[in-house]
């Protein structure tokens, strides 16, 4: 499947909306009372690893785009 510029803009729009969802979920969590059961440490580590991986992938794309 080939993507043109419009499709990449759509992808960026999806990323922006997903980031807004994450921000909203984190804000909601910060504002509600502490849960009696916290997320298991393994889940949190996996989540952090995935966030770091996605950021790394974005950094790679930026570097490539900068190089033209």
């Amino acid at each position: 499947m080939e993507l043109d510029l419009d499709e990449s803009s759509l992808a960026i729009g999806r990323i922006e909306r997903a980031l807004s969802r994450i921000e909203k979920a984190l804000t909601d969590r910060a504002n509600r009372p502490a849960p009696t059961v916290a997320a298991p440490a393994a889940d949190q580590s996996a989540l952090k690893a995935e966030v770091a991986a996605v950021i790394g992938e974005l950094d790679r794309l930026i570097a490539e785009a900068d190089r033209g």
Partner: protein
Amino acid sequence: MADVKLTIAGRPYDVHCADGEEGQLIQLASVVDEKVRTMPGGTEVRQLLFAALMLADDAQEARGKIEKAEPQSDSLRAAVALAESREATARDELQAAVAREKAALKELETARQAPQHSSPAVNPSNNRALLQIADRIEALATKVEQLP
């Protein structure tokens, strides 16, 4: 001072206490009286002695239970505090990561738009990667929304 008339083991006693403490004194006397009544036979002094010993035993047992429970509740409080602090740290880290991703996305958009003027060609592999990133961040958003 208030005057209170108490009856313990059938004998009346006139006792003084601070104003407002009459009810509590009467209630304590009824506890002693009840204990005395469970001591069969013997003289009145003997009944009072045994009642006092039984009450001392009750008090010691209750103190032991409290002392045993205190370390447990301390460690529970510490565990809850630790869990809360870990959760707050994780939340802060995620929020910082989201901010970094937003900044990176903005940079990407700028970089993507800049070469357009000189070269309209689009790198299809970059676009594919962008689509894959969108998939991954959407999956992340779902995971974060489903955190307990």
